[in-house]
C-alpha cells in the first residue's frame, strides 16, 4: 500500500495558540484505524487498517506516523502537523494516495476539524489530481481521516480514503 505515505509538515515559526495546541495534543498517543481506500483514487474500495503513533515534536507540532495495510499491500504512513503563531493556519507537506508524490498542503481548522488542501495539483497515472484531507478530532476521542480526491480534467470527485482511528489502551 504504497499509496498512503509519509506526511511531512514543517513550519519554522513556533508559538502559541492555546486551542490549536490543545487540538494537536489530541492526536498524541497510539492509534489503530479502520476504513476504506480506493488505491488509485477512483477504483473499487478496499478495506484498510492503519496503526500509527502520534507524538508531540514541538509545542505546536505533532508527528503521526505508522503503517497502513490493505488486502493488496501495506505502506508507511507519517503525518507531521504544525500550526503557526496564531494557531489558525496549518501547513503540510504530504505524500498521500493517490498522488504518490510529495505534496504541500495548507489549511485551517474549524472547531475540532483541520482541513488541509493540496497547494498544487499533481499528475498521477494519467490523471491530474488534487486532494483535500480532513482530520477531525471527535468528541469521543476518535480521529476521522478523510481524503477527497478530484480529477481536475474530468471533473470527477471521489472519497479516496476514509479511516476512523481509535486510541489504543
Amino acid at each position: 500500500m504504497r499509496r498512503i505515505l509519509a506526511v511531512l509538515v514543517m513550519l519554522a515559526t513556533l508559538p502559541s495558540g492555546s486551542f490549536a495546541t490543545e487540538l494537536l495534543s489530541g492526536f498524541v498517543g497510539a492509534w489503530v484505524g479502520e476504513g476504506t481506500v480506493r488505491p488509485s483514487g477512483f477504483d473499487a474500495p478496499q478495506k484498510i487498517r492503519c496503526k500509527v503513533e502520534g507524538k508531540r515534536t514541538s509545542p505546536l507540532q505533532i508527528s503521526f506516523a505508522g503503517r497502513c495495510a490493505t488486502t493488496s499491500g501495506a505502506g508507511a504512513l507519517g503525518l507531521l502537523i504544525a500550526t503557526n503563531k496564531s494557531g489558525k493556519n496549518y501547513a503540510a507537506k504530504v505524500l498521500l494516495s493517490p498522488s504518490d508524490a510529495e505534496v504541500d498542503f495548507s489549511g485551517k481548522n474549524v472547531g475540532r476539524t483541520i482541513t488541509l488542501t493540496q497547494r498544487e495539483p499533481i499528475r498521477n497515472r494519467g490523471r491530474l489530481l488534487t486532494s483535500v484531507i480532513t482530520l477531525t478530532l471527535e468528541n469521543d476521542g476518535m480521529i476521522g481521516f478523510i481524503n477527497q480526491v478530484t480529477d481536475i480534467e474530468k471533473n470527477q470527485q471521489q472519497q479516496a480514503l476514509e479511516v476512523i482511528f481509535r486510541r489504543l489502551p
Partner: protein
Amino acid sequence: MKYIVKLILQTSVARPIISMVVIGLLAILAAVGVLRIQYEDGLKTLFSSESPAFQDYKTQAKSFTQNETNIAVLVETKNGFNSASLTELQDFILEVQFVDGITAIRSIFSLRRFDEANESFSPLLPSDLNDKKALGAALKSASGAGSTAPAMISNDLKQTVVILSISPKMSEIGGTAKILHNLRQLTDEFAQSARFDSGGLKFGITGLLSVRASIIKGLKTDQMRINLLGAVLGFIVSLIAFRSFWVAAVNTITPVAALLFSLGAFGWLGMPINVLTNALPVLILVLASSDSIHITYEIRRRLGLGEGELEAIKNTMREMASPSILTSLTTILAFSSLFYSQSPIIRDLALAGASGVFIALVVVLFLHPLVFVIAMRVPIIRRSLPKAPKPGKTVNIGGIFHAIIRHSRSISVIGALLSAGALWVLLPLQTSYRFLENIDTTTPAAVVLDKVEKVAGPISSINIPLRLNVGVNLSDPSVNQDLAAIHRALEQVQEVRSVLSVFNLLERATAGTSTTGARDLSRVLALFPDRVQSVLISKDQRELQVLLMVPDNGSRAVARLVKRADRALAGLDLKALKPARPTGFLVMSSTLSDSMIRQLTISFLIAALSCPILIGLWFRRVDFALAAVIPNILPIAFVGGLLTLTGQGIQLTSALALTIAFGIALDDSIHVFNRLDLIDRDKTKVTPDQDIWLGMVHISPVLVTTTAILSAGIMATQVSVMPMIRLFGLLCIATFALALLCDLVLLPAIISWLKRPFRRV
C-alpha cells in the same frame, strides 16, 4: 616420533599435577568457546562458486526478485470458505502486514480482474463479502479452473494460500527467525479467536525460509542429543568390552575432553555448526574413543603381564603413539581431500574436520596417559585395571585366522572381484540432490508445503529469462506473440505443472473481456503491484521471465525437465525475445549438486590413493601399501553400489559420509599393520604366516571393540531430527562393519598372499 613420545612422557607422565592444571585451564577456555558456537544451515552458501550455473543464478537474482524468500501461509477451514471465514481471513491479511519485515502479500484478495469501463484492474473478490452470488463466481475463478497460472484456493474451497514476501534485509536467518516467531504468534491468536460460523481457521507456515529455520532448530537440538547419547553409548560399549565400570569410566574421560576441546576450538575460531558439520562432533567423540580404547587395552594387557604402573603407561605410549598419529593423519587426509571442492561450506567442513581430528589426537596423546597416571592413585581403579590374557578365547580366534591364511589366495581373488563388481555398479555415479532432503516429510514445514503445493501448485520453479532483442520494447506486439508461442511450447512439456509469466497473468485478468488494451504489456503491467512485476520483469525492463512451476523431485528430474524445456524452446521462431539458459535456485542447486558430488568422488579417490601411499611410507613397506587398497576400497564401493542399486543414488551426504568413513575405516587396517610391524621387529618369529596369525589374534578383539564403539557412538545420529544426518550415521556404521570384516578376513589374506616379497625397502 621419538620427540613426541618423549614430550608426552615428560609432561603427562612425569608431571601429572602441572599437566592437570594446564588442561583444566584449557578446558575452561574451551567451555567458553562452546558457548560461542554459531549455528547456520549453510544451504545459502553451499553452492557459491565461480561456476556458470551459479553465475547465471546470481545474474538472474540481480535482475528479478527471488521467490525463495517468500513465506507461504496455508489457511484451512472445515466448512469451506464463506463470507464469515473470508472476513476473518481478510482481517488476518490486514493484520499480518504489521509484522515487522513483511513487505508484500499475495492472497485470494489480491487477485484482480480487468475492469473494461475504467481500463483498470479491480479485486476479483467483491467488496461486499456477503454478496453470495458474486462471491461464489469469484471463488470459482480464484480456484484456477482451466488456467495454467497457480491457483490461490483449493477446488473444494477449504484451503487457501497466502504468500508473504519479506524484506531482503531480514531474509538472513536471524531476521527470518524473528519474523516466523511473530507470524506464529499471530496465526495462533487468529486460530484461537475464530468465530464458530466461520468453521474456524487453521494456519500452517512454510516456504524455503521456514524449512531453513526448521533446519537451524534441528541443528541446535541435535548437538545436545547426539553428543550426549554418543558419549553414553560409547561408555556402555566400553563397559561391555572391558567388563569394568571403572575402566569404562576412565576410558570415557578422554573422548569427552576431546569433544569439549574441539567444540571450544570451533567456537573460538568461528567455525559454525551447519548441515554438514553437524555430525562432526560425534565423529570426533568416537574417533577419540577408538584411539583411547587401543591405549587402554595395551595398558591393561601390560599391567596383566606384571609390568609396573608407570612402565606400562610409558611402554604403551611408545608403541601406540605411532598408530594413533597415523590413523589421525589418514582421517585428516580424508577431510583435507574435501578442500578440492568449490563449495565454501564443504571447504569449511574440511577445515573443521581436519582441525577437530588433530585436536582430538593431541588430547588423546597427552590426556589419556595422564588420566591413567591419576587413576592409578585411586585404589579401586588401580585394582580393576590389570587384565591377564585369556588363552581359551585366543585359540578359537586363532583357528579362524589359520583358515584365512590357508585360503589367502582364494579370499584375495574374491575380494578383488567383489571390489571390481561394486565399483562397476557405482560408476558412473548416479547423483541425487533435493533441497527438502534436509528435513523429514513429517516436519510441520514439509507437511504444510505439501498441502500448499496441492492448492497453489509447486512453489519451486525453473526460471527462463527472455531477453528483448535490440530495438524491441515491451509495447511491441511481437513480444506478446512470442510470449504466447513460448507458453504454448512450455505447457506441452511433460511434468510441468504450470507456466507463469506476465502473459498468463494478463490472460487470466482479462478473461471474458473484449479489451485489446490488455495486449499492450507495458501499459497494462504498470497496473500490477511492483512485487509481481519485479518477479516477472527485470528492473531495466529489458528482460521478461517465464517460470515453469515444477515440484522438487530431485536433481535428476530437474535436469531432465531443463533438457525438455530447452528442446521445446529450440524449435520456436521468435521475433522479439531470446531465451537465456534456464536458471533459478532449483536449476542452480540441481546442476551444482551433481558436479559437487562428482568432485567429492574425486576427493575420495585422492584419499583412497594417498592413504595407502602414506601407510607404505610410514611403515616403509610396499606390501602394506598394496594390501591397504582393496580392503578399504571394497566397503566404500559396496555401500555406494548398494545406494546406486536401490535407486537412492549418491547424495551429497552419502559422498561426504563415504569419504570420511574411508578415512576412519582405514584406522583398523593401520592398527593391523602396526601390530604386524611390531611382531616383525621381534626376532623370535618363525615364518611370515605365523607373524600374521599372531598379529591378528592379538589385534582382532581390539578391532571388534573399537568398531563396536565407533558404531555405537555414531548410532547416536539416529536420534537426529535431520534425515541426512541419520543417513550419514547409517552409511558410516555400514562402512565400519564392512571395513572390520575386510580387515579381519581380506587384509590378512592379502598380506599372506603377497608373502612379503617386498620386505623392507
